[in-house]
């Protein structure tokens, strides 16, 4: 070792430690993590809720298409197979949640069949990030996907895997797969973070560089075995979501902007003032054009297209909840699941359908202190809740 190397080693090891400005960074980190998880939860909620939305049915490549590649489908062990039938949870008014899976990144409902999940197969012989159906039979096989991959979004016949990586290089990737796990096409971009998604039919809507003046929304569509992208700028967009009827809206801090789609591209159309966050798509029979939103104090059932007529017309059910509502998912029977992340009583709340129209809706069941990264409807009943730690539990408090 040369003198310089030795001196450098000494200099580095003797670097004085000055007191950081922030004495305890944990609260700030927790806030940032929560914000990111909220964005993911909303987008997944939107994806889950457009089951019935079909705008442009797409045909995708088959095994006869030269562009189609079958990814590695070697069966691998699950990341952490369920060791126990049920986690301990503090629930009132309903059954205990059932542990389904441990080690998931994201879970999204599918238009048909079981939800899709994305997970890191850290313990498998081949490792990698994989997607798989959340089938009752565990363990199951997963399909290895290209990186970066952070979430899975299911269309009618296309499964989209979306990811951004800003740890070593700023790069993003969107891959389209068939529901059997065959790669149809993939596209990458640099210097763009993908922060929210929605799906209509098989079209994927992606928010690029959200919360910035350069925010844009891409519509990605599989055409002839390739991904075709149409883009529109929506400065300041924080989220993108789709109604059950397939109308796409971008949310900024002050307004909702409708995204119009044609065969040749997309553009912004109607813009309405609204300062709340979209926290889920309303899939109830009366809310096919709307969302569940959080206005800072209440959960509001909102039909954005009616806001030009008047706020009272556009707003449906309103719920006062004991904290910050982060995720809303309509139950198949018309009830509502809410993830409350702050306040005096955080947890997941289930409101039966007959309570939503009441003057002061009361929850039928509460899973106290549960923190949900995603919530999606389980075809067997209830919802699949993914915790911040990647634990998926099925909870079915509906009678």
């Amino acid at each position, binding site marked *: 070792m*040369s003198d*310089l*190397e030795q*001196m*450098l*080693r*000494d*200099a*580095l*090891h*003797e*670097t*004085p*430690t*000055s*007191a*950081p*400005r*922030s004495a*305890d*960074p*944990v609260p*700030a*980190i*927790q806030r*940032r*993590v929560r914000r*990111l*998880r909220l964005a993911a939860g909303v987008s997944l909620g939107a994806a889950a809720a457009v089951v019935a939305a079909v705008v442009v049915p797409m045909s995708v490549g088959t095994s006869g298409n030269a562009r189609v590649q079958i990814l590695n489908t070697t069966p691998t062990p699950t*990341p952490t197979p369920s060791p126990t039938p049920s986690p301990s949870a503090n629930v009132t008014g309903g059954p205990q949640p059932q542990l389904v899976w*441990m*080690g998931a990144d994201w879970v999204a409902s599918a238009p048909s069949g079981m939800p899709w999940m994305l997970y*890191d197969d*850290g313990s498998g012989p081949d490792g990698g990030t994989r997607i798989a159906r959340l089938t009752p039979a565990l363990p199951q096989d997963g399909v290895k996907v290209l990186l970066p991959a952070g979430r899975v979004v299911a269309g009618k016949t296309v499964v989209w895997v979306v990811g951004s990586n*800003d*740890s*070593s*290089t*700023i790069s993003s990737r969107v891959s389209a797969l068939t529901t059997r796990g065959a790669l149809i096409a993939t596209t990458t971009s640099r210097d763009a973070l993908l922060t929210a998604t929605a799906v209509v039919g098989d079209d994927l809507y992606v928010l690029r560089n959200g919360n910035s003046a350069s925010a844009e929304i891409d519509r990605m569509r599989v055409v002839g075995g390739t991904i075709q992208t149409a883009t529109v700028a929506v400065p300041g967009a924080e989220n993108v979501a789709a109604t059950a009827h397939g109308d796409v809206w971008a949310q900024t801090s002050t307004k909702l902007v409708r995204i119009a789609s044609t065969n040749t591209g997309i553009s912004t159309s109607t813009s309405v003032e609204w300062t709340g966050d979209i926290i889920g798509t309303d899939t109830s029979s009366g809310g096919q054009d709307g969302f569940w939103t959080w206005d800072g104090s209440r959960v509001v059932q909102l039909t954005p297209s009616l806001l030009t007529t008047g706020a009272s017309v556009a707003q449906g059910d309103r719920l006062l909840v004991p904290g910050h509502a982060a995720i809303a998912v309509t139950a198949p029977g018309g009830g509502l699941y809410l993830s409350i992340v702050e306040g005096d009583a955080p947890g997941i709340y289930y409101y039966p359908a007959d309570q939503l129209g009441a003057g002061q809706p009361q929850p039928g069941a509460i899973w106290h202190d549960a923190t949900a990264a995603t919530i999606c409807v389980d075809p067997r009943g209830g919802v699949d809740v993914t915790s911040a*730690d*990647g634990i998926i539990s099925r909870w079915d408090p509906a009678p």
Partner: protein
Amino acid sequence: MDARLADYVRGQWPSLVRYGTLLCGDAVEAEELVQSALVRVALRWPFVRDKDDPSGYVKRAIVHANISNWRRIRSREVSSEALPEQPIADRSDEVADHDRLRRALATLPPRQRAVLVLRYLDDLSEEQTADVLGCSVGTVKSQSHKALAKLRVLYAEDGVMQ
């Protein structure tokens, strides 16, 4: 945030900021750098294998976050031919030399800086450094060689290295 991670962050925060400062050359920027890296670690926490001692994972995240940050702000970064400050008079020669060396280090490109910090602060081998940075051993060797050569020049120009 997982309680173990929160405890780790609280216990290691000053040390991590110091680590970030060596990588990015600015103590204030280092706090944001380390916090950003920790956000990513928190999101990936279920998949961190060594939860009892996540130092390696966290440092790797900081290194990559710094390289990423630099790419974003590189247009604003100005390399200085001469070191901007003189050591203060009342410090010992050795302390002043070390201070001068650290400031010289801060003028290197971030990947070269990361190679030196990983090699000489963390005492990682060339293979381990390559693994952290996601590059080949050959790249580590060449980056290390260039970094030390540049450091030597900067140091000599500052009148310290003979």
